[in-house]
């Protein structure tokens, strides 16, 4: 429909780009870069890449230890005093530029931002940041690439303004043409020169592999992913069952907590859809069965979830304004307009920070039961990274300087550097209370520089000043990780997916909303799947299947 002749175009494109790559790297023969950049991005080539040797850093001892399955370390309080990991600043002066995103309001510029000035001092470089709000990323990134005036660190686009993942067309070809293959510096034991980069788990590094090389630095995240947050204080007050054992019981819970006259509903339509899909066993994006991929939207289970949620909506358990754009779902949850809300585990501290319900405020995670009872359903794992950052092509000296800075930016939880990076300077940007930093207003506005999206230390569970909530978050993750389900395509690259992801997700989202709000009949889902397949879904499936075979 939108794509007239995808295959010839792609061939044409990659051809043009690798010629450009050869022209760029050929005559100057960059030091440390023995590869011409012409290696195609195939599963075989990528499987050969020797990932950086994982060397865990023995830093602060967690109160609740994580494990290799993806459970994160949890800390009740921040080590005090926090040890300093770097005796001297990592930088050698000069300028370092980066294109980063932020989810918070864009902070003041460097001349009016004491945190940024202090960061420059501690890094001993002049950090030039182009900070872009998440929603503007795809457009700004396209402009950046088109303008070809690249900074040293580049965070590729992540999300469209509607919050859907933004694909980056021809990413591997662009990486190969413009960005540095970091393999010579990081592959295998070479990474040991940068101990905090070596501290990042292999699953995260795998997400940075393209064209048979390591083309970026990962921002690792726990695979615990999204969970159904539950207002435990309200559940107790309403005497509702916090742990329904089947779909029927879950419906009873929805009924018990909903009271429109008190402006209280169980959850938004989207939240119910998210949760019921788990109960009926919809796969995590794709199901791999005998080398064949089936997309979640194509499964019978998805239709069943759709029909059940439609009934829940009709029964009046969903927030009636669920479908408005930019619905303030977090606010509704905090205000008690909804009592269930799915969110990433990283949001846990935020709910406490924005609590309006008083000291009784208490949240937990609700595990999805199996539809017909008999234990809990598996939850969906999230990707092991938030994003990755590419480095502009440069000579070996410059790349080593940049990696030294990245190493500082990856100093792990428990160090003074981590505390400074996240929270700023004590007394100015935060104060210590109950063993954790509490941000001041200056801290909130000045520290959101987006440097945490250049590279980051492995994540930890830490809800500042609230040991009980930290414990609860840890226990929840511990309970779900063993049965959590992985997306079989994570770690593989499909060019069609990278380009059409936003459009494909939009097709399904639009139909889902139309059906759940009663604007279209349930049977319209057939059209959704048809449109999705023709719009590129089948092409994406084929590309992933070829690699998984």
């Amino acid at each position: 429909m939108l794509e007239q002749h995808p295959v010839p175009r792609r061939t044409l494109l990659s051809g043009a780009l690798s010629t450009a790559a050869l022209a760029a790297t050929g005559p100057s023969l960059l030091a440390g870069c023995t590869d011409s950049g012409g290696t195609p991005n195939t599963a075989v080539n990528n499987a050969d890449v020797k990932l950086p040797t994982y060397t865990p850093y023995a830093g602060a001892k967690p109160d609740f230890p994580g494990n290799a399955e993806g459970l994160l370390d949890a800390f009740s309080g921040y080590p005090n005093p926090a040890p300093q990991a770097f005796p001297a600043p990592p930088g050698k002066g000069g300028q370092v530029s980066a294109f980063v995103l932020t989810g918070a309001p864009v902070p003041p510029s460097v001349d009016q931002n004491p945190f940024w000035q202090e960061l420059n001092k501690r890094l001993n470089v002049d950090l030039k940041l182009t900070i872009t709000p998440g929603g503007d990323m795809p457009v700004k990134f396209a402009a950046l690439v088109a303008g070809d005036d690249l900074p040293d660190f580049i965070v590729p686009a992540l999300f469209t303004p509607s919050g859907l993942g933004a694909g980056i067309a021809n990413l591997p070809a662009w990486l190969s043409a413009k960005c540095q293959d970091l393999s010579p510096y990081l592959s295998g034991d070479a990474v040991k020169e940068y101990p905090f980069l070596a501290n990042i788990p292999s699953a995260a590094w795998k997400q940075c592999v393209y064209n048979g090389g390591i083309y970026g630095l990962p921002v690792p995240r726990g695979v615990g992913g999204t969970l159904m947050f539950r207002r435990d204080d309200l559940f107790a007050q309403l005497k509702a069952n916090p742990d329904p054992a089947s779909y029927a019981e879950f419906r009873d819970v929805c009924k018990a907590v909903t009271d429109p006259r008190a402006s209280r509903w169980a959850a938004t339509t989207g939240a119910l859809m998210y949760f019921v899909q788990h109960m009926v066993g919809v796969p995590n994006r794709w199901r791999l069965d005998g080398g064949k991929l089936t997309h979640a939207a194509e499964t019978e289970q998805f239709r069943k979830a759709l029909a059940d949620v439609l009934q829940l909506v009709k029964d009046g358990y969903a927030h009636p304004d669920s479908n408005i754009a930019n619905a303030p779902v977090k606010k509704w949850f905090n205000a008690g307009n909804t009592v269930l809300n799915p969110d990433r585990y990283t949001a846990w501290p935020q709910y406490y920070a924005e609590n309006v319900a008083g000291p009784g405020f208490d949240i937990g995670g609700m595990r999805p039961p199996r539809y017909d009872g008999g234990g809990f359903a598996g939850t969906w794992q999230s990707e092991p990274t938030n994003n990755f950052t590419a480095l502009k092509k440069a000579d070996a000296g410059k790349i080593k300087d940049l990696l030294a800075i990245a190493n500082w930016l990856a100093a792990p939880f428990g160090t003074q550097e981590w505390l400074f990076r996240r929270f700023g300077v004590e007394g100015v940007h935060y104060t210590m209370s109950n063993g954790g930093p509490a941000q001041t207003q200056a801290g909130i506005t000045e520290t959101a520089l987006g440097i945490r999206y250049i590279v980051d230390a492995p994540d930890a569970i830490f809800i500042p000043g609230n040991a009980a909530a930290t414990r609860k978050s840890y226990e929840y993750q511990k309970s779900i990780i063993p049965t959590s389900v992985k997306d079989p395509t994570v770690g593989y690259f499909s060019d069609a997916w990278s380009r059409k992801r936003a459009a494909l997700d939009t097709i399904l989202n639009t139909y889902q909303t139309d059906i759940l709000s009663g604007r279209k009949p349930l049977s319209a889902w057939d059209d959704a799947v048809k449109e999705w397949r023709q719009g590129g879904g089948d092409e994406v499936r084929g590309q992933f299947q070829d690699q998984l075979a």
Partner: protein
Amino acid sequence: MTVPTQTPVGRTSPPPHGSPAPPPAASRRPPWWRRLAADRVLVLAALPGVAALLLFHYLPWLGNVIAFKDYQPYLGILDSPWVGLANFAVIVDGDPQFLNALANTLLITALQVLIVFPAPIALALLLDSLISERLKRLAQSILYLPHFLSWVIVVAIFQQMFGNAGLLNSALRAQGLATIDVISNPELFKLLVTSQVLWKDAGWATILFLAALARIDLELYEAAAVDGAGRWRQLWHVTLPGLRGLIVLLLILRLGDTLSVGFEQIILQEPAVGRQASEVLDTYVFNHAVLAADWGQGAAVGLVKGVLGVLLVLGANKLAHRFGERGIYQR
């Protein structure tokens, strides 16, 4: 540069210098460079503005060439491959979603021209009839205020007031009454967006009309009153004729961007009512071209929209000339 055959009147003709020049020499205009030199100060003063206009308004037009290309940001405009008219296929073949967006656009445009356009005229007349200056100022301030709110805020206010969990419906619920679905009702959507525009901008748009009203000669009213004309006849025979030139001018300008019916306002409310009811040309471009990174197609639809806008302006202007009005420029 061609020299017009007619001698224009006004500033561009050279000053007479007071010299007794012979008549044939006066009728022959000096060459263009001589005239340019004579006006060099004015020309120099205009240069920065013209340069800015060329650089930021005309040069980017060249980018429209991607409507005929398979534009890829990595390749740039020049190196992207040509695809002929392939990007115009959705328009020529009549993609049902495109036609739906076109129909929605035209319907909303019609509502806006019929309801939103005359509203400020009526409002200005009402304001003008207020005798107390203080009351008038107060009313004006209150009416101007919404203009300064961004669409995000306006839409949020409407959702807070009329949402299904908003002020109105919460109050109805508390009284045990049936609720009214305003913001997620596809049938009401076009009226909803129209009333939002009305609330936001009707007050602001009165400014021009108030200025025009102040310019009408009071003696005309007195003369009309002497001739026995009541309020309505004065309105019909004095006030409205006094506003006619401005009304025609604004209507023509409005027609120029008639196919732009508010991208932000509509995309913000699309999820609540669905695409069938809400998609207009601008959001169609966003949903089908920008999201899919199909820039060429987006440019193609935008180009067609722009051409239609120019045709509408020229057509409306011609019509205005027929009726003896000045329009946006003179013949």
